[in-house]
């Protein structure tokens, strides 16, 4: 494919200082920070026809809290990020999809203006994440119409003003699941049941309680969907209680599969970058550097999936590291890695050294498989505890758990494998 890319006739070549792949919150924020600070162009490549990423079609409040100290709707937030990147002097190309690599920091791009080769000095992967669809979740049954991910649903409703059915089952009970419920309500589709395999609904308690009342929605915990019924249109789902094995059928014409995130890692894998085997994200150090010099990664491609504002703050954090890279100032290479232990599924960033700069927001980001109200996080080296910290906030499945990076301060990363997990609970 690479050969075709390079040999194709009529390819125009662009030579920005920095190429950012993806114009979601992290990519746009990185563009806004970098454009005034680098000598040369900052080029953002976006495959959608409008920049802004997922917030464009999340038409509800809750955006911009941590990065702007504001409370905005998704579309408004996307608009602000777009305007700021443009005002800072970044160039945003939409309908421009990076389809492969033409060199270490060279990209093959398809756009209506033709094939473009982008030879950049630094590349930032800001490709985001998506929800696993039905086949990836191996849900058997009929292939009836009416099964969507939240992303598909919100595109359909908020961008195309389309409709779905009347009675939905939402698989998942995390933040994005409630976002799906709101979208369904907006088009007159009632959520008759939410299912979660966890023993309790995963989203913020403040939301789950009122949410159940507001939307008259039942949440079935310890429950999984084992079959989708109906063709050509969905007529119901069969669910199973994980503890009792009891199965029952719920009538519905719409099924929304929420959460279960996977990073859009196609370009990272095509580059042969080291990948975290669990999160499937490219591995980065605290300076957000991937395994290839001059290639950085930010946002939800690293931590699938955190809120848009945290993704944007990665974009702010990466700027100084990119500027340093372009100036030839390189921090030392990683000496060791931090590995997640149960109940954590992954931790980001995972590559560390004694001279490592602070990670974005001075936080480690983790994904927990269990709800723990008052967790004590434990760092072990060679199996021996070297640090612990109690957080006043809970760890819950379905949202990123944050730990101050100070917990790994002073670790000699060359002295053996380091893991992060939780203290035994009694």
């Amino acid at each position: 494919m690479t050969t075709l890319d390079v040999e194709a006739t009529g390819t125009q070549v662009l030579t920005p200082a920095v190429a950012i792949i993806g114009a979601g919150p992290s990519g746009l924020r990185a563009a806004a920070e970098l454009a005034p600070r680098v000598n040369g162009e900052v080029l953002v490549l976006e495959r959608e026809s409008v920049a802004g990423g997922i917030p464009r079609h999340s038409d509800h409040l809750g955006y911009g809290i941590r990065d702007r100290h504001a409370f905005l709707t998704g579309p408004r937030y996307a608009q602000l990020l777009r305007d700021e990147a443009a005002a800072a002097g970044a160039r945003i190309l939409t309908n421009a999809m990076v389809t492969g690599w033409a060199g270490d920091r060279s990209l093959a791009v398809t756009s209506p203006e033709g094939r473009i080769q982008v030879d950049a000095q630094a590349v930032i992967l800001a490709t985001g994440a998506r929800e696993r669809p039905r086949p990836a979740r191996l849900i058997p049954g009929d292939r009836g119409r009416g099964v969507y991910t939240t992303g598909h649903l919100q595109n359909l409703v908020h961008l195309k003003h389309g409709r779905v059915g009347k009675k939905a089952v939402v698989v998942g009970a995390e933040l994005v699941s409630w976002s799906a419920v709101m979208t369904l309500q907006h088009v007159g589709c009632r959520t008759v049941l939410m299912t979660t395999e966890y023993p309790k609904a995963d989203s913020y308690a403040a939301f789950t309680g009122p949410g159940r009342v507001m939307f008259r929605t039942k949440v079935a915990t310890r429950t999984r969907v084992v079959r989708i019924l109906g063709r050509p249109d969905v007529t119901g789902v069969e669910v199973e209680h994980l503890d009792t094995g009891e199965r029952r059928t719920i009538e519905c014409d719409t099924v929304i599969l929420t959460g279960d995130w996977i990073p859009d890692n196609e370009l990272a894998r095509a580059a042969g970058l080291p990948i975290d085997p669990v999160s499937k994200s490219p591995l980065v150090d605290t300076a957000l550097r991937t395994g290839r010099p001059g290639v950085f990664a930010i946002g939800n491609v690293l931590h699938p999936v955190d809120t848009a504002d945290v993704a944007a703050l990665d974009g702010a954090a990466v700027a100084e590291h990119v500027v340093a890279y372009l100036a030839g100032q390189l921090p030392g290479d990683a000496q060791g890695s931090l590995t997640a232990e149960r109940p954590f599924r992954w931790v980001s960033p995972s590559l560390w050294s004694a001279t490592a700069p602070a990670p974005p927001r001075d936080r480690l980001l983790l994904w927990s498989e269990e709800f723990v109200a008052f967790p004590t996080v434990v760092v072990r080296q060679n199996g021996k505890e070297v640090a612990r910290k109690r957080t006043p906030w809970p760890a819950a499945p379905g949202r990123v758990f944050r730990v101050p990076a100070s917990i790994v301060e002073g670790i000699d990363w060359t002295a053996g494998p380091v893991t992060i997990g939780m203290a035994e609970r009694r």
Partner: protein
Amino acid sequence: MSTTAQPYDVVVIGAGIVGSAIARTLAGYRLRVALLDARDDVGEGTSKANTAILHTGFDASPGTLESRLVHEGYHLLAAYAQETGIPVERTGALLVAWDEEQRDALPGLQAKAEKNGYHECRIVDADEVYAQVPHLGPGALAGLTVPDESIICTWTTNFALATDAVQRGAELLLERYVQSVDITDQTTTLHTSRGDVTARWVINAAGLGGDIIDGLFGYDRFTITPRRGELLVYDKQARQLVDKIVLPVPTARGKGVLVSPTIYGNVMLGPTAEDITDKTNTGTTEKGFEFLLGKGQQLMPELLEEEVTATYAGLRAASSHPDYLIEADRERRYVVVGGVRSTGLTSGMAVAQYVDHLLHETGGLELVERDDVPPPPRMPNIGEAFLRPYQDAARIAADPAYGKIVCFCERVTAGEIRDTFCSPLPPTTVEGLRRRTRAMNGRCQGFFCGAEVGELLKTRGNVPAAASHIQEVSS
């Protein structure tokens, strides 16, 4: 069009690969031909969901009609694919023996291939097996190579044959489920769910429904039992794990589970084999997935680390008759084409030729070749190994719609989606659009493009002018 005033000369029941091939052949004569199907698109039955392998026929039962027609069909379809642009990749296949019994069976399989007129099979040792498929799970003892087995696009094959038939003047009559049949002296009337269709000759290529139609003509000579095969399709990122078709050594219970690259750049694991009763039940099952994952663990454990992008089930028309059943009845002006199971993808064009010979023999139809037969259609390439529109700078320069990628995972462009609505067989459903372009068939299954593709189906591919241009924001 509920009733056709003028009877057709021939009506072919079943617009799958076999029926489409037959209609195409007969439309090359001065005949009025109809191609009729119960579904809302061509190839909606067994033809759309199979393992998409172009078979050499090395493992057929020697001496059968099936063996002969698969062998002939392989060459006919390979040549037709060249002409029309149906994507084919000659990957070759490797049969892998996992125990002594299977290893002992290899010489017999090689001899069988020879009897089928295929002379290229070689027995190889375990080292060679792993040299050819390095990611294969441990424990393989030996193998048999079949260098000419190929992967092909079953959808494009069906669309090419049906398009060709239509361009030659055959009429495509969809959504007509045949309920009963009246045979008179000169003509036969098919009473369908959307009115009557009358023809002088009827050809039954109804696949799964072939035995039922045969019954309507007064026969009781075979029974079709739908054999469900479930498959898992892994992400394109798995494609580097396997570049040829990995077959098990066949047993009495069927051909078993294979691992194969697909023409779209994925990797397929399957199929299961389960006899069922409902001829429309293409649902997947927990048991099926469990079985396939178990097999996959053994065959290629690394594959299971990859994402699954599609799961589906196809039904093979397993027949009580051990061979293809293709016979003409001069009296009733009727030809049965029954029991054409999964090999029908490969053999379809040879089956059409065979039906043509039968009709010549019976002399029941005046077969005068037309001198104005249009050239075969040039099909859009939806295979991964050849230049796709999004990669084609010259094509994008001539028409920017080929530079506007709509489906990111499969890199399907607005131009390709638009073109399919201008084709002789435009899609009417999202499913039909998926099979013609690959749109929405990728790893995200519509997360990004589902709403957009849905809109394009409504607008028949017309993109609002503003959206088709590159949008640039700068200060």
